[in-house]
Each structure stands twice: as C-alpha cells, then as structure tokens.
C-alpha cells in the first residue's frame, strides 16, 4: 500500500485563510496576543513589586511605631526610676516626717529586738515588759 502524507491545511476554511495570509496578509492576532501577554506579565511584575514594597513600607511603619512605643515605655520607666530616686532621699523623707508630724526617730543601738506591724488593738495587748538588750546585758523597755 502506498501511503502518501496528506496536506490537511491545504483544504477547507483554515487552508483558505492560510493561503490568503501566505499570499501577503499579516497575522496581527498572534502578535497582539503576545504583546498583551508581555505587557500583562510586565504589569504583574510591576504591581507585585509595588504591592510588596507597600507592604514592606507598612510593616516598616508598624515596626517603627512599636519601636517608638517601646521607647516611650522605656522613657516612662526611666522617669519613674528617677522619681523614686528623688523620693527616697533622706532629705525628702525627713521633710515628710516633719510635715505629717510622724514623730519618728532612729532607734538607739541595742534597742531594736524585733520589728512588727500591729493594729492599735493588737498593740494594746503587748505588755511593756523589760527585755534584755541583745548585746550588752543592759535592760530596755519594749515600747508600743
């Protein structure tokens, strides 16, 4: 059997068109599609780039805001620390003792045996018994 290759494009509508094109017409559709695809790809890359850049800017701003908040907290912390340092100075404490008439004075040597915090009712129950002073054998009176 003698089989010959058949030129399918040479017949039918497509064949006619191809013939017409090959006769001098240009295939504009293919060019435009390719061109549009290139443009779309380019635009996609561009938009992607811009989107990522925008996201990055947003995250940079957020990071910066958080950093700023951390700085503010640190500053507040430092400020409070400085205030504490000012309030714990003896000069200030002495002034407050005088202002509120607390009538506090430092204990004498050997006078402190133990320190406790009592309510007035509890304090009233503690007897004022003489207690031996720890280091020297002399006697003191436990005060209320």
């Amino acid at each position: 059997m003698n089989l010959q290759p058949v030129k399918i494009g040479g017949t039918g509508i497509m064949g006619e068109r191809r013939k017409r094109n090959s006769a001098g017409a240009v295939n504009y559709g293919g060019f435009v599609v390719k061109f549009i695809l290139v443009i779309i790809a380019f635009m996609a890359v561009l938009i992607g780039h811009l989107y990522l850049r925008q996201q990055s800017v947003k995250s940079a701003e957020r990071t910066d805001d958080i950093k700023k908040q951390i700085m503010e907290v640190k500053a507040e912390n430092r400020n409070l620390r400085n205030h504490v340092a000012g309030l714990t100075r003896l000069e200030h404490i002495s002034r407050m003792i005088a202002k509120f008439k607390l009538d506090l004075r430092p204990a004498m040597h050997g006078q402190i045996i133990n320190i406790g915090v009592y309510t007035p009712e509890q304090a009233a129950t503690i007897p004022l018994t003489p207690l031996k002073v720890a280091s020297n054998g002399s006697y003191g009176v436990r005060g209320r």
Partner: protein
Amino acid sequence: MGQQHNSSDGAVNSPESIRVRFRFIAGLLIIAGVVLGGRFFYIQVLQRDHYLSAARRIYTKKQTVTGQRGEIFDRNGNLLVANSPRLNVACSPYHVQKDEDRRRLAWILSQHFPEKSYAEYYRRLDRYRYVTGSDGKFVKRRNQYFLVKRNASLEKVQLLKKSLAPTGKKDKRLNLLRVVSFSPGVVRTYPKGRMLANLLGYVDIENDTIKPRNGLEMRFNQAMTPERKRNVYERTPAGHPISFADNKIFEPANGKDIYLTILEPIQAILEEELNTLVKEWQPEGAFAAIADPRTGEILAIAQRPTFDPGDRSTYKDQGAVRMRYAQDLYEPGSLAKPFTVLYALERKIVTPEDRINCEKGLWREKKLTDVSSYDMLTVSDVIKKSSNIGTAKIAVMLGKEGVYHALTRFGFHSRSGLPFPAEQKGFFLPPGRWDSLAITRIPIGYSFSTTLLQLLRAYCGLANNGKMPYLKLIHGIRDPETGNMELVPHKGFQETGADPVQLYKLIDMMVSVTARDGTARRAAIPGFQVAGKTGTSRKNIEALKDPVTGKIIRKSGYARDQYYTSFAGFVPAHEPRLVMVITVDNPKGGKGGGAVAAPVFKRTMERALRYLYVQPTEPFPEPAVGRP
C-alpha cells in the same frame, strides 16, 4: 445594503490598506519608542547621577543619633546622676485654620506652660510669619513650626495631651493633637538634689552638646560620653525607615556608668548633720569625709556651702562649687599632734607615762602658749588635753628630721590617690628650710598646710595599724551594653613603718580624748570606744585694704578671731570600721573642735554605725529606754 457596505469597505479593509495603516502605526510606535528610549537613555544613563541624587535628597533621611550619657550611682546602685527623658513640644500653626481653634490652642498652651502669656501664644500661632527677604521686603511664609516648650516633663505632656484631645465623638472641632507634635529630649538631672553636688559636678548644654563643667562629670566625661553615629536611610512619606533599602542604621552605644564607693544612706546622714551644724554655728564653710580605713574607700564626703546642680542660679558662688575638701589648704592644728607623739613613742624617746613640763601654759623661749595652763602632764595627757607646749617639747626631742618624717610618712604633702586633678598637695618646707620656731609649730599643726583628704588618709593609716590606704572613690565602671562591671583596682597601701604596739598605745591616748575629761567628750558614742583628736587653728588671712584709700585695714597673718576647728576620729577604736574628719571654717560663737566639730562626729557616726549594723563593743552607760 449589505452589499453596498461591503463594496464601500472593500477598498478600506483591503489587505493593502490594512498593511499601510499597520505600517504607519508601527512606524509611529517605533518613532515613539525610539524617542522614549532616547529619553530613557538620557535620564537613566547620561543624567543618572543627577536624578539619583535629586531623588535621594527627597527620600533619604540623614540623622545624627547619640546614645545616653553614662549615669553615676553609689556603691549599691542608688542613682545619683540620671538622664531624665523629656519631650519637646512643638506645633504647626499653619494647620490651625480657624481663629476659634487658634484661641483655644493658645489658651491651653498658656495654662500648661505659663512662661508665655495667652496673648504671646496667640501671636505666635499666626498661620503665616513675615520674614525679611533678600531684597529687604517682607515675605509671607507658612508658619509650620513653633517650638512651644523644650524639654517638658512627661507628666506635663501627659496633662497637655489630655487637654488637647477631643472631648468626645460629638466634638467636631479641630483635633489639636494633630497640630501639636512631641519629640524626645533628655536632660541631666540630679535626683538627690544638693547631695554630693561638689563631687558630682554639673553640665552645661551648648549647641545640643553636653559640656561638663566640674567634678566627676568632667573627670569621667570621656567614659560617660555616648557614641555618636550618623544614620542614613530611605524613608517612607511618613518618615519611617524602609526596611529593605540599603540603609545605614546604627544603635549608638550608651556611655559608661560610674559606680562610686559612696554609700548613699551614710552620705545623707552626713549631709543632714552638716546642715544642723550650719544652722547652729553659721560657719563660713564646713567639710567632712568618712572612709573605711581597711580599704580607703570613701563612704561619704560633703561640704557647706554647696550648690544645687538642678538650679543654675546657685552655680555663681565659686566657694560653693569648688571641692573644698580637695582644694582648700589649711593648717590642721592639733590634728597633727598624734603623728609626732607616735614617732616619739616608736623611737623610745618618750613613753605614755613620761611627764612633760608644760610651763604652766606659756613657753616664753619658744613664744608658745596652751589654751589652759598645765604644769606637768604625762605624754598621754598631752594628747588628751591637746597641749601645744607638751607636743612641741616632744618634737624638740625628736628633732627636725624626725618631725618631718613623722608627718610625711602619713601622707602629708602628697596626694590622696583620688581622681581629682585640682587636688592640692599642700605646703610643707623640708627641714633644711625651717626657721628656729618651726620645730615647735609644725608638730602642733602650724607652718604647713594640708587638705581634708590628706588628713582623712593619715587617720586611716592610724586606724589601720599603720597601713595607710590610698583613698578610693570609684568602685567600678559599668558598660551598659554588656552589663559588665569593670572594677577599679585598689591602689594599695603605703607602709608607714609605724610600730603596731606603739600605735595601740597612741590609740588608747586618743580614746581618752573622748573621755569625760578629754577635749572631745562630746564625740563619745555610747556603746563604742571612740579614738579621736580635736584641732583648732587660727586662720592665716591676707591683708585687707581699703578699696578707696588703699590703706591697710588689717594686716596679713594669723587672725585673732577666725579659726578652723576640726575633729578627726575613728570608731570602734581598736577595730575601726569608720574614720571621719570634719573641719569647720570660722564658726560663729565657738572656736573649739570639741564644741563645734565633735558633736557632728558623734551624731553622724552613731547613725552610720547603726546603718552598717556594727555591734557595740562597750556596755552602755545607762539602759536604753524605749519611748512610751
């Protein structure tokens, strides 16, 4: 119709026509492409540098950043010098369009920062400012920046923000928080007020740069100065750095923190007691220091008058600003006596029981007097009663070289070891240049000058069995980045060669000074043996001239009515934990160290020993009674 249409389109849509049109359009596109490409080439290649630099100017931010200046702490980490965060308050008047809002903002600002009046704020909040142009005419400019307050405290800013914020959702007025901005600032603060002011010093700010002016601020400026870096980064329209850009952002290192050997509670006690002394005696000055004799570490050091580093108006008084304990030279008076007597004991020239003829208070040959007239005193009593004649006679037995050695081996006429460039060495002539009376004057603390720090060190030597430590003030320098503390090594001890046995005897003599019949009975502390010595010396003053006539009103020399009164001592006497020296410059109404300085010693030491939990070594003279 269709045929007509087809026939009329036939020529237009013919392949030839389409090809022509396509070529035409393609030609146009090619020309446009070439033009655009050329323009691109021109911009991107030929003019690249120009446009790149122009763009970078817009989106690149350059910023000089510095870390925090190092802070100063006491031995236990109590803050002495701090950096306090502040906020600079500024606003953009251009964005306040309505007059009503302008008035409201001016009113709020005048309430929170009353340094300027409401009218002044209103004037400064004008949307435009008028500046003189290059041609001499007024030019109208947008007023976009007005610095309301530099370095406002965080608390004030917090209150201001509350006032500026809208009152609620219904408040349709301009949100003033949008036109007021806050930028961080920092100021140097001294949370303990006047405490240690002379030692710490202060800083000035010139062109946003800190300039240390005095004290440790100046001495350790290099260590405390933070790193300064220049950040360059691409910024977003809001000014934030873009993370993926080629930025150069540094975190500048903070300055190093200085840790002193000072103990704040003891320092506070000393300062408080000096205040009491000033109230009681109204002296021209008073300075005192407390040290640990075993290490030479200074635990407290103070002076009056002093200044407030937070109040610039107090800086003017140079007498208050300078470190008098390191810079003021004075004759120590009787504080020098124990050193001469000690050397005489060591050389076996005298024993504590030897009796000295004290000439009934007047030694005519040497033109020397005692405050009280004594006939015969033992060497112990010479110290106890602080006899000038007795000490001078012992010194004569020792000889010039002996007296000179007795004093200089305890550090007189040499620096104390503290990092004060301005510390004075004192005036002390070598024996070859002494006149005939010097042998009787130098051992009683005249004819040579010293500083309080030298005396402190010398008494540390006495208290520490003759091993005299170099004084130490800096405990360590801490790097805040790593948290590592670099301890400052101790400079060690200077061997005085003093005999511990004789030193023990001398200390017993000094304990008798604070006994009931001693010159410093007011320095006695119940429960402790106190070894000490009083000192009173006349002030050597300059001649005073009448500014108008130029005549001399008062001759130079020793004043009859002006004194330095001092007390130096240590406690517990034979196992000393603390040494203190106090000098009072010309107290009013009192001249004796026993009356003026000794009570301050007693009160300060009593409280300091309690703070340090030093157990009493002696029985209390009477029972301690609690307050009912």
